[in-house]
């Protein structure tokens, strides 16, 4: 085997290894490196009480209740399942019904999730406020724009 052929062999070998490794990683990461879980991903029968996790989804319409000036109760949903959340503290600007949010905290019992932090999740749509009103007036407002 000449040196050049050996070198070529090693290059091909390296590329094959890297390619297979990338495929292996991509195939497996999709569901694993999550900053948060969605409500339907949480196994209702096997809830770990007091274990700190993050849940991401939308704030369900008509579920937001103000209990006192700094204490709130709402539902997080991903249209398949929903979770009741209680929170004490200051909500971010973007937080509103129908808007995406990520909450950090723990289940205090089987059904109620006590949030310690609430982050509002913004989507990739940018639109002037005036246009939104126009769209709503004419009925073209796409529900997907949350």
């Amino acid at each position, binding site marked *: 085997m000449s040196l050049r052929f050996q070198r070529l062999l*090693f290059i091909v070998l390296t590329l094959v290894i*890297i390619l297979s490794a990338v495929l292996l*990683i991509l195939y497996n990461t999709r569901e694993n490196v999550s900053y948060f879980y969605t409500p339907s991903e949480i196994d209702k029968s096997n809830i770990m009480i007091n274990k700190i996790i993050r849940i991401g989804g939308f704030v369900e319409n008509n579920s937001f209740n103000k209990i006192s000036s700094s204490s709130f109760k709402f539902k997080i949903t991903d249209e398949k399942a929903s979770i009741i959340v209680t929170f004490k503290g200051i909500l971010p600007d973007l937080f509103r019904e129908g808007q995406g949010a990520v909450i950090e905290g723990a289940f205090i019992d089987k059904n109620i999730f006590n949030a310690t932090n609430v982050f509002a999740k913004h989507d990739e749509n940018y639109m002037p406020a005036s246009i939104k009103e126009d769209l709503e007036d004419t009925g073209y407002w796409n529900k997907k724009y949350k």
Partner: protein
Amino acid sequence: MKLLTKIIFFLYREYKLNLSGVQDILTNIIFFFVSIFIFIFSIGPDKETISLIGVGILWTLLLLSSTLSLRKFYQDDFENGNLLIIHLNGFSYGFIAILKTLSHFIFVQIPFLLSIPIACILLNISNEKLIYVFISFTIGSLILSCLGSISSSMNLMNQRNYLLGSVIVMIFSVPIIIFSVGIINLEENFNSLTNILFGILLIVFAINPWASGLCLKLSLENS
């Protein structure tokens, strides 16, 4: 056949070298345990908390203690000209890097792996988790060996800033820590997370001979 004997006696040579410097390895392990003690004392006696963050502590300390010995990875052999002699004995630079990584794993990381069960007892990690800890640490320390080879070969000619090598290893080991701590905390995802770690191992393993080999060549050329 000749190549195989050469490889075996390369490892024999490494074994002899590490045996004569066994106190270095033991000091590393003592550092590992003393840091565990310090962590336990600084957190307080709450067993729940300790077992909650135990795996994270274990990983951080493994990373720190294995970066401690990084400077010795190639430095000794480089300075006394042995690297050159090994190369002249028919090993290409990349192959030297692979063998050195292997010997670092065998003689430096495996003693750590063997001391993990004791560390688990100290940190209150349950027996069922021990197997997950062990698997993730085996793959993880192989990755650390490869990264260590890359960073220490890069810093062979670096006379001013030794810490840079450790920083390089640490910044590239962030994903390893994310996934391997995930393995232990999310047992239901064991398979896919192990596959991811294995994939990372394959990538660094494939990059290692090229990057380290090139750096070794550079350093020998300009020493």
